[in-house]
């Protein structure tokens, strides 16, 4: 499941504006979570962070590591892009929905075609509020008899409260009759293994019990991992733009699984995977143009402004049924005034909240996220800019440290994600190769017996189109 890290400037929290020996953390006020009175909690992998020399900070109410001794954000970033790293994302929220009304319930808030989501498949979506803004972004997975959702660590309590409210207002009968049930999972750790060698490492640890080659991006399954004797939920997804897996493992077995993954040598002399912290997660997702809740998304920004209209399901665009649909429909028809875009600059990075002005000094927008890109080796960022100044190639200025600095609007993503696509099945390959037909759809079998029938929907290939 993708991590959607915290928001409300908690994550940006640790930008330290150093002033003399004070080096006071600007984050001092921002960094403290909403549950300020409580001491930060430890994730099941806390001891592993300590053992590996992690620089521990408080984030979303948990003690997590920003980076590790002898590594650092840049090294961890490059290692994720080139080899494989392991992240602890156990602070994220996991909510499960049961009962036949779970689709209707979720579709009141999510903009995706939830009903059409096949078993074992996941989809990125946003949960909407009544004003057409985003409450949280989430990965929704259909696990057959229930739906599993992963939400942001800092939003999870807010999301749970929102779910309860919607349930009481509109689904109270379904809840009392058992047609809708929801569960807030607290007993699992979530490990993200990301990088080009993630499949090799994980495959070795699984000992061949799961065919990872047939598991493509956004596929998910429950699986019993023999090496730790635990039932886990495995999803092929992440928030880094690299191939990888997110594994929900019972908290008692979390360190054991993490150590197996970190010690796996893949036939070589040294372990391959390394631990990586929160610091490089921000640079990794920013390079891929991915939104971070609290920066690119919040309760006042909708998916159209965020350039996420592709999240709206085909059926949902017409039928609606989610909160704020009227406003979204209006925006789809008449447009919006501000839009999310990417930019590059020179010199210092233009950080979050930096004002953007046009060549004449008039206000043009604001930066939502900004940092240095280790892969591109220059400062990059995302911003909300007045239409039509968001067009690629437009030259604007960002006011950094009181001085305007040139920026250029760029096409997103800065770095093309490398998601894994499972090869097509043998039967569809035969059809595609020899009969010049494309396989569009295979129906469910007509009956669960030895002799059964299925409908194969085929389409003649267009001669001009690519195969």
């Amino acid at each position, binding site marked *: 499941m993708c991590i959607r890290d915290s928001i409300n400037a908690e994550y940006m929290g*640790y*930008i*330290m*504006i*150093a*002033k*003399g*020996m*004070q*080096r*006071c*953390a600007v984050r*001092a006020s921002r*960094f403290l979570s909403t549950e300020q009175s409580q001491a930060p909690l430890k994730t099941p992998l806390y001891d592993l962070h*300590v053992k590996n*020399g*992690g*620089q*521990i*900070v*408080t984030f979303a109410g948990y003690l997590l590591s*920003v*980076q590790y*001794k002898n590594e*650092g*954000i*840049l*090294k961890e970033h490059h290692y994720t892009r080139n080899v494989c790293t392991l992240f602890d994302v156990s602070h994220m929220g996991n909510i499960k929905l049961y009962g036949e009304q779970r689709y209707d319930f979720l579709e009141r808030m999510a903009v995706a075609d939830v009903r059409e989501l096949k078993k074992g498949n996941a989809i990125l979506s946003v949960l909407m509020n009544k004003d057409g803004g985003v409450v949280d972004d989430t990965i929704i997975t259909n696990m057959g008899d229930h739906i599993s959702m992963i939400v942001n660590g800092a939003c999870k309590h807010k999301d749970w409260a929102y779910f309860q409210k919607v349930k009481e207002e509109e689904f109270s009968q379904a809840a009392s009759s058992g047609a809708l049930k929801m569960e807030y999972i607290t007993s699992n750790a979530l490990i993200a293994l990301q990088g080009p060698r993630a499949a090799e490492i994980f495959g070795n640890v699984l000992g061949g019990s799961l065919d990872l080659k047939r598991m493509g991006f956004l596929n998910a399954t429950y699986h019993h991992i023999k090496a730790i004797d635990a039932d886990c939920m495995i999803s092929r997804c992440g928030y880094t733009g690299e191939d990888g897996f997110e594994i929900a493992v019972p908290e008692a077995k979390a360190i054991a699984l993490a150590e197996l993954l970190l010690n796996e040598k893949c036939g070589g002399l040294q372990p391959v995977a390394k631990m990586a912290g929160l*610091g490089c997660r921000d*640079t990794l997702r920013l390079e891929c143009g991915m939104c971070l809740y609290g920066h690119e998304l919040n309760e006042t920004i909708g998916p159209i402004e965020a350039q996420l209209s592709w999240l709206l399901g085909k059926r949902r665009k017409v039928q609606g049924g989610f909160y704020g649909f009227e406003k979204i429909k209006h925006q789809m028809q008449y447009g919006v005034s501000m839009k999310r875009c990417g930019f590059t600059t020179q*010199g*210092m*990075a233009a*950080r979050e909240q930096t004002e953007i002005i046009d060549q004449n000094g008039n206000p043009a927008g604001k930066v939502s996220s900004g*940092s*240095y890109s*280790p892969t591109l080796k220059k*400062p990059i960022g995302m911003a909300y800019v007045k239409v039509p100044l968001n067009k690629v190639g437009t030259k604007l200025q960002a006011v950094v*440290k009181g001085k305007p600095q040139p920026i250029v609007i760029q096409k997103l993503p800065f770095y093309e994600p490398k998601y894994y696509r499972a090869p097509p099945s043998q039967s569809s390959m035969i059809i595609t190769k020899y009969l010049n037909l494309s396989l569009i759809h295979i129906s469910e079998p007509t009956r669960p017996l030895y002799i059964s029938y299925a409908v194969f929907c085929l389409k003649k290939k267009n001669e001009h189109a690519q195969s």
Partner: protein
Amino acid sequence: FCFFFLMIRRPPRSTPKPSSAASDVYKRQVVSTQSTWGLRKMLRVCIRKFQPALSKLCTYPVAFATTKKYTKSDEWIKYDDQTKVGVMGITFFAQAHLGDIVHIELPKLNNPINKGKSIGGLESVKAVSEIFAPVTGKILKVNEALKNDPGIINKSAEKDGWIAEINVSDPKELDSLLDFEAYEKQCEEHKEDHQTFFI
């Protein structure tokens, strides 16, 4: 007056020529690092001890006439009282807190600077920081290598990661700066302020 003499141990006379009997000696020579280290150390101790006398005898500047001081804002300055030039940079402690440095705004050349004022800036992936002048003076030289690779500061903050050379106008200002023990003590005290800790 005092005098000292140095006994320099010379290697045995030998030649690599195969015909000569002395070539055996050449082949038998073992480079003893232990003894050369002892020699260098002895030399250093001697020179340091007799430095005032030496400086009267010798006209060339002795390399060890420098003082290194630290500021409360995590800069270091190594002052050479022969040349009246101070080399400055940020401390190991500062770079460790900043993390990987990605950009530097070097001080402007030939600019007059005042103690305690901002003369440049540093940026890491996750933080920004000012560079403050440790003393009053003028910038003579800046470390151009940092423009292409600011990461040098992370690798060697107090040596290769030097930021600027300053022509110090009033060496007495150095007296008010911290020495190493005082600076280390300050670092210990301020560790908790950051709500982060290194393990």
